[in-house]
């Protein structure tokens, strides 16, 4: 007998990892497979405590390879399955996620970025952008949401399940150690009460009837023999990905219309950018800000429009060029100056962004 976990809307005080567990419940997730790695462990701690109350399942596997592959198995049965990881675990996840890309499996993975490479720190970074968007041995047919706080973590974890099952691309919620551990208020809610219809999963295997007699067997492979076969498959998937990109892509932008300098950042760093922007605008400076919410697919149209029109861009990240690289690719050919502020593995304060923005504006 299962009970709806979140019945009424409520303002609550939680840490980010807990938010993920509650959001997964609210989204109707059936099962989580996971493996311990800091800073995402509390996603498992809370899911494993809550699961029995709501008729959900949990499996701690022997490593992240197993967690990721078990997730692929789970979704194939038509269950809303998810996993979570960070750091070196993210690296291991690339193998199962590459399989999910090829076989179009609607996995949901939460990544709480920590310092890298290797063990580095457990604290925070934005250094898993490349891994999460393009980490498999393919073309990165994935959806990646970069959240900027707890309300986002809740909203986008729920959305991730819907988007995954609608489009059948492995879907990721990209957070970080700060978001995972910090505490702040947010509103938890039942998505259906807010008019968000939760997609019901369709099984890949194990449907009714005897295969061969009542229905054809459902047989899935990820191996191809001919270059042409593979080419057709990839081109078909990419076409679908690109055709749906505009619908999937999300962004946030402020004051970009009259801006001479637009600051681009994603995730929690955008909070510092918002604060810096307020201060800079109060001082009458022509600054705007742009935040890609989906890092994959990027909001390409908006980015191209921006770089075609604006004189200067400043890309700010807690990594050494991982989001800048993605922006620069889209900006290719545009005349704007692209400045960067790279702070791998360390938090960025609004004041730092302000100072840098003023420096850039001052230069002719």
């Amino acid at each position, binding site marked *: 007998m299962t009970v709806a976990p979140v019945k009424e809307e409520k303002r609550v005080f939680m840490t980010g990892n807990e938010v993920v567990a509650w959001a997964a419940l609210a989204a109707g997730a*059936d*099962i989580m*497979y996971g493996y311990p790695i800091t800073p995402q462990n509390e996603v498992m701690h809370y899911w494993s405590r809550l699961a029995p109350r709501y008729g959900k*399942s949990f*499996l701690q*596997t*022997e*490593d992240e*390879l*197993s*967690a990721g*592959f*078990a*997730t*692929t*198995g*789970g979704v*194939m*049965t*038509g*269950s809303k*399955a998810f996993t979570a990881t960070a750091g070196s675990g993210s690296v291991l996840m690339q*193998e*199962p996620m590459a*399989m999910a890309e090829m*076989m179009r499996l609607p996995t949901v993975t939460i990544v709480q970025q920590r310092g890298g490479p290797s063990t580095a720190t457990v604290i925070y970074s934005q250094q898993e952008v490349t891994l999460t968007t393009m980490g498999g041995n393919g073309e990165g047919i994935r959806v990646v949401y970069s959240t900027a706080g707890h309300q986002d973590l809740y909203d986008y974890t729920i959305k991730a399940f819907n988007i995954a099952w609608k489009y059948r691309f492995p879907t990721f919620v990209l957070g970080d150690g700060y978001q995972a551990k910090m505490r702040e208020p947010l509103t938890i809610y039942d998505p259906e009460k807010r008019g968000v219809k939760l997609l019901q999963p369709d099984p*890949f*295997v*194990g*449907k009714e*009837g*005897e*295969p*061969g*007699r*009542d229905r054809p*067997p*459902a*047989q*899935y*492979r*990820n*191996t191809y023999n001919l270059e042409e076969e593979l080419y057709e498959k990839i081109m078909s998937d990419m076409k679908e990905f690109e055709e749906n990109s505009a619908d999937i892509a999300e962004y946030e932008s402020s004051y970009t219309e009259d801006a001479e300098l637009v600051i681009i950042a994603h995730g929690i760093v955008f909070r510092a950018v918002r604060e810096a922007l307020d201060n800079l605008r109060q001082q009458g400076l022509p600054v705007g800000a742009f935040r890609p919410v989906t890092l994959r697919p990027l909001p390409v149209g908006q980015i191209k429009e921006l770089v075609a029109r604006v004189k200067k861009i400043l890309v700010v990240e807690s990594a050494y060029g991982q989001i800048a690289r993605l922006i620069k690719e889209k900006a290719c050919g545009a005349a704007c100056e692209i400045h960067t502020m790279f702070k791998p593995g360390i938090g960025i304060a609004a004041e730092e962004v302000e100072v840098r923005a003023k420096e850039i504006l001052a230069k002719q």
Partner: protein
Amino acid sequence: MPVPAMPKSWRVDNKPHKFCPGCGHGLVLKCLGKAIDELEIQSRVVYGCDIGCSLLSWDLFNLDTVQTHHGRTTPVMAGMKRARPELICIAYMGDGGGYSIGVQHLVGAAMRNEKITVIVANNTQYAMTGGQMAPTTLPGQKTETSPYGRDAETTGLPFQGAEMIAAIAPEGAYVARGSVSHLAQLTRFLKKALRNQIDGHGFSFVEALSACPTNWRTDAAGTWEFVEKDMAEHFKRGEIKIPEKREAAADA
């Protein structure tokens, strides 16, 4: 043209299958097909195969199938079983996928008594990739990566995978080793392994000694001898772990 007798759970439309002449997989999978037929579970089975020659079985059966990554079939099927326990989940792989890259997953699944059935076809080398040395290669056996014969000093002795599983798995697990040289026995073991899953007792595991004349470069007589004489010296046929007799779980 008359069609040879095949298990009911096999597809007929895409035969002959793609395995080499004399390959052990055809025999092992025929025994598996027979076991599935006799247990009448065809509509509940999901079959997973690995990377290696086992992947050639991806469309062999009239069963829902997923071909996964090398060594990862065990966790995919374990994940499936956890999500939908009413499915009968079978993970089929070779000795490379099972005992090398996938051995960590076998240990995890066995230790947790995951209610899936794992079948490892052991032909003592990585066949599909051209015949490299595997954990089960015999001492002195020449392979592409042991061109002078496997040196036990530096690379160890043939891995006793089934015994390891039996040592790790808790009560309720079923572990056996059969061979393509004794098909009736192999079929029996596979049936008992699947029965163990159906009854919800625990992990079930069958290692099947198999043949690869292509990479062994053996004729029929030589193939038979290698399985029955050489491999038999290192890998003993029989049931290694059987659950103590108990009532089938009420909600199996």
